[in-house]
């Protein structure tokens, strides 16, 4: 998985590309979030548009990332959910946990 971060109005927008699956991307996601928090970035917007595959481990890491950021006083939100990821979050009711946006500008303003 590839992560491309940029900062917009104090919000760390991280575009994720590739797979977030067991043994490939799941631990990477944890490191990306930890590194952002350690760098003092607590407003995190994950752009999921480039995520090609995600499994239950990847979903678990998303949940873990949300908890980690929240526990550190920050906020983690999602942008551009691919349809299949959206369905996975719906069937597990995690869609009720995450704030999800389709528009980057609107997402950035929401922090």
């Amino acid at each position, binding site marked *: 998985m590839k992560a491309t971060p940029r900062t917009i109005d104090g919000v760390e927008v991280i575009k994720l590309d590739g797979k977030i*699956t*067991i*043994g*490939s991307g799941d631990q990477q996601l944890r490191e990306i979030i930890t590194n952002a928090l350690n760098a003092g970035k607590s407003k995190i917007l994950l752009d999921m548009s480039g995520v090609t595959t995600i*499994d*239950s*481990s990847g*979903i*678990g*890491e998303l*949940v*873990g990332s*949300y*908890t980690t950021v929240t526990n550190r006083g920050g906020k983690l939100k999602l942008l551009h959910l691919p349809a*299949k990821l959206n*369905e*996975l979050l*719906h*069937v*597990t*009711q*995690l869609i009720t*946990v995450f704030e999800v946006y389709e528009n980057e500008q609107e997402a950035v303003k929401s922090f």
Partner: protein
Amino acid sequence: MQGNGNGERVEITISSRFENIELVQVIAEHLCENAGLDEDGTHWIGMAVREAVANAIKHGNKLDVRKKVNATFQLHDHQLEIRISDEGAGFDPGAIGDPLNPLNLMKTSGRGIFYMKTFMDQVQYSFVPGGGTSLLMTKNLAKGTGLASSKI
């Protein structure tokens, strides 16, 4: 792959490495595509297989690369039967909490079997003492298997 006129049977045995998961997933997806299943249905069955093989590698064989995971796919008419077997000590599926329970919602694990049950018609574990775990999953490909149409 063996074609006998009545269906297809495919078998693959892999060592317990996560990078081998995709090999098994791709076979499942090809079988579904060849059977005329739509893209969504194919995707969800592939994901159920991915979850099953990941569990066999991680929880069954405990990442021991000397231990194998065997997958067989049997397609007869529109009925797809998938069996995933490992060489681990087995586990109690009933001990895994319901991921939809609010108390479990924020857990970082425990959704794999739930997804399998969501995407497949039948998910059944059996355990052979000293002989590992065998998981049987079935799906009727004729029923229209996109997640949205079958489960939501």
